[in-house]
C-alpha cells in the first residue's frame, strides 16, 4: 500500500492506493472532457498523499503526460480529433505558454486566482444551465 520514494536524499512514504485511485478518476474526467489534469493531480499528491511540493512538481507532470498521451491517441483513433482545430489550438497554447509566465510576473497571483475563481464559477453556471446561454 505504501511505497517508499527517495528524492534528493530524503525518503517519503507515498500511499499508492490513494494515488492510483485518485489518478485514475482524474484521468477519466480529464480525458473525457479534454482538459489537463494538473490542478487536480497536484493537490492529490500534496494534500491527500502528503508529499512536499518539490517532489510533486515534476512527478505529477510525468503522471499527467501518461494520461495525455493515451487519451490523445484514443481520441484520434475514435475519429474525434480535428487536425485543423488542433493546429490552431496548439499554436495558441504554445504562444500562451510564452506569454503567460511573462504576464504572471507582473501580476499578484492572489488576484489572478480570485479572478479565475469568479470566471470559472460563471462558466460552470452557464454549463449547468443556471445562467441561460443562447442555443
Amino acid at each position, binding site marked *: 500500500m505504501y511505497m517508499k520514494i527517495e528524492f534528493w536524499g530524503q525518503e517519503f512514504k507515498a500511499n499508492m492506493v490513494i494515488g492510483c485511485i485518485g489518478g485514475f478518476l482524474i484521468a*477519466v474526467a480529464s480525458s473525457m472532457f*479534454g482538459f489537463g489534469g494538473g490542478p487536480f493531480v497536484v493537490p492529490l499528491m500534496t494534500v491527500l498523499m502528503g508529499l512536499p511540493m518539490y517532489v510533486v512538481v515534476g512527478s505529477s507532470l510525468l503522471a499527467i503526460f501518461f494520461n495525455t498521451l493515451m487519451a490523445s491517441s484514443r481520441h484520434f483513433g475514435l475519429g474525434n480529433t480535428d487536425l485543423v482545430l488542433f493546429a490552431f489550438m496548439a499554436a495558441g497554447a504554445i504562444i500562451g505558454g510564452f506569454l503567460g509566465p511573462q504576464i504572471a510576473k507582473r501580476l499578484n497571483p492572489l488576484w489572478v486566482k480570485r479572478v479565475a475563481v469568479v470566471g470559472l464559477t460563471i462558466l460552470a453556471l452557464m454549463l449547468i444551465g443556471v445562467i441561460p446561454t443562447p442555443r
Partner: protein
Amino acid sequence: MKGYFLLLLFVIFLCSNYVFAQEEQAQVDKIILNLDKQVYRGGEVVKITGKVPPGRPVYIEIASEKKVQVGRLDARRDPDTGKIPYIFYLSKDIPALYMILMPKEVESAYNIEKAKDKDWSVSRMLLTTGADVAYITPAKAKVERWQASILATILGSRGTKLEPLDEKGNRRQSMPLIKTRFRWPERVFSPTIKINEDGTFEAEYRLPENAPGGTYTVIAAVDYTLRSEVQTFKVDLPWYKVYFPKAGVSLNAIGPFLLAVAVCTFGVTMGAGGGFILNPLLIFIYGIPHTIVAGSVMPTVLFSQASGVYNYSRIKFISWKLGVGVGLAMMVGGFIGPKLTEMITLEQYKFLFGWVLIILAAIMLWQTTPGYIAKNQKEQAILKEFRRRAEEAAAKKREKK
C-alpha cells in the same frame, strides 16, 4: 388508293395526338428547379424558384457534400419492453450542413413539433409536416451500431457490433443522428416555401456564416417518386475562412486562434491549462461538437508536457517511481475517458463539466486562503532551494563529461 391515304392520315393524326398527350402529361409531372446563382458565400441567400404540378406541396432538400461523423448512445427506456437498449449508433455519412425547406402551409405542424423544445424528434417532424418525401441524402447514410455495455466501455471498445441495418433501418436511425448533429429544429427545417396557385414556387435559404465550403446538392420533391433533377451549387470560402473537417464548419480562423492565445495565456497565468476555459467556449461560441472539442484540445498540451518532463528529468527532479506509478493508473483512465465522451450527450457533457469547474473553482478558492498561502510560500522556498541544487548538480555533471 385515296381511301388508304386518308386512313393513313387518320392513323398519323391519332398517333400524334397520343404522343402530344404523353408529352403534356410528362410536362405536368415534372418539377422545374432553378437557383439564382451557382456559387455562394457563407451568409448569402440562395434564391430557389421552380414549378410543380398545381395544387401539390413541394419540399426542397439542401445538403452539403461534406460529411461528418456523428455518434449517439440510445439510452432511452423502451416504453414497450421497459428495457434500456444501450445501443451505440455511429455514422460517418451525416451531411455537415443539412436543411429541408417546407411549404409555408405546414408552419403550424412545424411549430407544434418545435414547441416540444429538446424533446422534438426528426422522424415526427418529417411525418407531421410531410417533409419525409424530401428526406433523401441522410437516408442513404450508412449507420453502424454496437451493443454497448459497461464492461465493453471499460475495455475501451464500442461493444459488440450488431448486424448491419437494412435500408429502412438505416433511414430510421439516421434521423436521431441528424438531431444529435444539428440539435434544434430551426437548423434542419424551415417552412418558408411560397407556392402559387399555378404551381410556381419560390424559396429563400440563408446559408449560415459557418457553412462548409464545397458542393451542395438541391432536390425538390412532391412525393416519394416525383422529384426534380439534382441541382448543385458551390460555397466558396474567402481566404480568411478555414474548413474544420471533423467539426464540419468553416470559421474565420483568426477567431479561434486569438481565443486560444488569450485563454491559454490566462490559463498559464492562473496555473491551470487552457482546456478548462477553452472547451466550454469552443462549444458556446462556435457550436463545435463536444467530442471534437475534447479530441482536438487534449493533444495540444502534449508538447508542453513533454518538454516539461524532459526539463525536469535533465536536472533529476522527477521521482520516477511516483510518476510512473500514478501515471500507469492515469493511463488506464485516459484509455476509458475518450470512449465516454462519445457515449454522452452534449447536455450531459456540459452538466458534468460544469461540476468539474465548480470543484476547480473551490480548489482555487482554497488556494487564496491565508493558511494555504503561508504554507505555500514555505513550500515554494524549499522547492526553489532544491531546484537550485538540482540544477547545479546537473551542470557539474555536464562539466565532468
